[in-house]
């Protein structure tokens, strides 16, 4: 079981304690959800130093926006949304940076990301997963990350990505097609 799920009442108490300035309560939230955030951020950006920085930013943003959390959705969903937004923003920033130097921004960005992985010793499964993720178009990569790494259903994926269910379904089939082509070359 990958998805983190905790008692709602306990989570509400943790949030209340954080809002009252309890640093330990926030530390507990970080400990509980850091693996979940790592899967999203590293799945999308690769295992780089930037990913760790974005991971930290996710929790810093969470701390500052905790007063806006109404408890209507699960805390994990709220954190996941922050992680997705920050990660997609980072990808856009990266793309802009590469486009300053080259016309083939996307291709070079993918090459850069794949090269990051080549330098690391990983087991075969992890290597296949990471190479496939990095070779995918970011809008399909996020879908694959949510499904394959986080274990979210189609409905949960749509909720987290703020997309209509129909859009997610069509992206699933297009992402699957792209994934087949990528994996055939690996």
């Amino acid at each position, binding site marked *: 079981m*990958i998805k983190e799920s905790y008692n709602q009442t306990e989570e509400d108490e943790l949030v209340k304690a954080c809002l009252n300035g309890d640093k330990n309560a926030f*530390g507990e939230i970080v400990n509980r959800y850091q693996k979940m955030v790592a*899967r999203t951020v590293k799945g999308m950006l690769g295992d780089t130093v930037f990913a*760790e920085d974005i991971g930290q930013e996710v929790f*810093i943003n969470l701390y500052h926006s905790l007063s806006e959390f109404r408890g209507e959705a699960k805390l994990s969903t709220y954190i996941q949304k922050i992680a997705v937004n920050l990660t997609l923003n980072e990808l856009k920033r990266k793309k802009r940076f590469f486009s300053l130097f080259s016309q083939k921004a996307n291709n070079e960005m993918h090459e850069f990301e794949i090269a990051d992985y080549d330098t690391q010793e990983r087991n075969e499964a992890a290597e*296949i997963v990471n190479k496939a993720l990095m070779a995918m178009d970011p809008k399909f990569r996020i879908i*694959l990350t949510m499904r394959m*790494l986080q274990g979210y259903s189609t409905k949960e994926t749509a909720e987290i990505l703020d997309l209509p269910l129909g859009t997610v379904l069509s992206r699933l089939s297009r992402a699957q097609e792209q994934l087949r082509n990528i994996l055939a070359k690996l």
Partner: protein
Amino acid sequence: MNTSEIKKLIISSLNANADTVEISGKLEEVGVTYNFSHNFGDKVLNKLFSAGLAINREVEFVKYMNFAFYRVALTGVAAIVVLLISIFLMQGSISLNSLLGLSDNYDESIVCLLTGN
């Protein structure tokens, strides 16, 4: 799990009605895991609360600057008012000449001073 099984598993995660919880669990078992550095939590808390202290210091500095400015400004205004009142009492008006300390017989005084007559 061999390479083709891993690939099939990855592809199947994108089936609309796939059991994604089971797939992600299987992948984790074969080593597809993601973690931040071991002291990630401490780094977040340090960044968060040391940044908070810096912001507090900045806010306090601005507050003290505002306070100091008001004190200096009020003292200055009070000094100007006292000066105007004293000029009015001594000169009987607050014209430009009286503000500059010049009397109406200024020209004559200057001539006397320069010629000695």
